[in-house]
């Protein structure tokens, strides 16, 4: 294992510190606190709080700022934050209009956010992100897990919250968004959890894992490595099978790298995905390409498609100023 770190147990805190140092104009990390919050809170707006295990950078801390999250609680690597931590973050950014939690659907995240919610007594709702389409429904009754689509949910809810939407309306938007956002991923390698020093699993040089999450865990099936066009066709067809047909056919596409995927490959995948999506009759009108929802040093990528309508598209285009996503200001 080779990483630019000091002691494995200090990675999360030191990395958050570095993030705050390099973005001190927009972010605050309270020393010792394990959450990041916006430097300037929007009074009277619903507070948008998310979080989860670390190792998915820039998710979630990199999405804190104007037009997106108000706070992000970062747990240990791949470990949901604890309820006390979540409560502290909520209390730091709640300004009276209530709080909306964005939670990726993992047993750990759900349980810790649930416990936190039970400990708070102001208005609080949560949106569960369930965009991954790779998990077979049989056997699991708690729904799909949340992966890269979380970014899209956070960006669009963040824009609406910034415009002053009330909690109830945000909930309706959030649930609609989750229903219209689906993802599927492929891994070329696993990743190394720093405290473990060896990769979570090994893949041969001619293999890939299809249907992976964002924790370096095994996927649904191990298959022979294929070329970019074939991978794109497969991911896109799986994703589209799970999306309700949309009227306009307009779509937002996220080509997301898992942390160790060079941009040259992600750009190339954008071309392959674009072909597959158009072939299926959709019109990709917005693109985001980069390493945004990662699994430490895992190589591979996921494709997320969100069906757009005029409202959602306008919210996507609305100004955002975070460390990892910025436009319009």
């Amino acid at each position, binding site marked *: 294992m080779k990483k630019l770190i000091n002691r494995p147990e200090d990675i999360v805190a030191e990395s958050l510190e570095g993030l705050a140092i390099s973005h001190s104009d927009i972010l605050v990390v309270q020393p010792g606190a394990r959450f990041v919050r916006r430097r300037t809170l929007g009074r009277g707006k619903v507070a948008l709080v998310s979080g989860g*295990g670390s190792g998915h950078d820039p998710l979630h801390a990199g999405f804190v700022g104007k037009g997106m999250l108000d706070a992000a609680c970062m*747990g*240990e*690597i*791949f*470990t*949901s*934050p*604890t*309820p*006390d*931590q979540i409560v502290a973050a909520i209390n730091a950014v709640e300004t009276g209009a209530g709080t909306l939690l964005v939670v990726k659907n*993992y*047993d*750990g995240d759900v*349980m*810790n956010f*649930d*416990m936190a919610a039970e400990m708070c007594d102001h208005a609080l709702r949560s949106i569960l992100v369930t965009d991954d389409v*790779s*998990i*077979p429904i*049989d*056997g*699991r*009754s*708690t729904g799909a*897990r949340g992966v890269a689509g979380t970014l899209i949910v956070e960006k669009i809810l963040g824009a609406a919250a910034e415009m002053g939407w009330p909690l109830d309306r945000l909930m309706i938007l959030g649930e609609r968004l989750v229903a219209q956002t689906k993802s599927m991923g492929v891994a070329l390698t696993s990743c190394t*959890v720093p*405290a*473990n020093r060896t990769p*979570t*699993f090994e893949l041969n040089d001619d293999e890939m894992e299809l249907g992976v*999450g964002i*924790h*370096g*865990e*095994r996927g*649904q099936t191990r298959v022979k490595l294929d070329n970019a066009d074939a991978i794109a066709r497969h991911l896109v067809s799986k994703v589209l099978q799970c999306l309700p047909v949309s009227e306009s056919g307009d779509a937002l596409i996220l080509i997301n790298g898992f942390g160790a995927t060079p941009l040259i490959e992600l750009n190339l995948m954008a071309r392959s995905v674009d072909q597959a999506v158009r072939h299926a009759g959709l019109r990709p009108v917005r693109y985001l390409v980069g390493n945004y929802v990662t699994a430490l040093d895992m190589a591979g990528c996921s494709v997320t498609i969100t069906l757009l309508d005029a409202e959602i598209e306008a919210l996507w285009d609305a100004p955002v100023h975070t460390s990892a996503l910025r436009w319009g200001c």
Partner: protein
Amino acid sequence: MSQHSDASFPDLSAAIKRRLIEHVCETIEEHAEELTRLDKAVGDGDHGINMSRGVRAISAETEQLVQLETPRILQRVGMILVMNIGGAAGPIFGTFFMTLAKDFRTARDQASLAQIFEAGVESVCARGKSRPGQKTVIDVLAPLSGLLLSGKPLSLAAFSEAASAAAEATIPLQAQRGRASFLGARSIGHLDPGARSAELMIKAVCSVLAKECK
């Protein structure tokens, strides 16, 4: 388990409490690598790291803990686990201990203990939206609860063995909760890491009690 005729067990001595805390913590620490290895096979490869972060936080408070009454210890241990582990294991084990704490004062005999234990198991099911057979911690806790409730006289050794058998029995299951459920049928054939942790803690408790309480 031995029976007492008075309203509740007399509380354990500070020495036994210390031994219990130390031995549970040591056992988890000693098996941390194994737990992580199990979690690499069906999860995200951090269960040992998570559990040892939890027990280290407990160890750091041993001196304060042993001064407390057992229900307060259970309550505090649960809190420490919740606040330090995170992930799935934190709420699961934390909720279990915190629930045991609630009625522990009324523990009088195997029957009352069984009810307390059962309440613990139920709280874990509620927290995790889970039930037996889904390849989780519950597949160790629920059968033990059943054993206690059955009313059959039960030795510490038998209880210990039942924990091991229950953990072992998670191997052929297909996971339906936790990260292992993402693997579908690929989760079959692996021991559930959380079940192994539960087994280790139960066995650690039984071995201390067997030695110290005869």
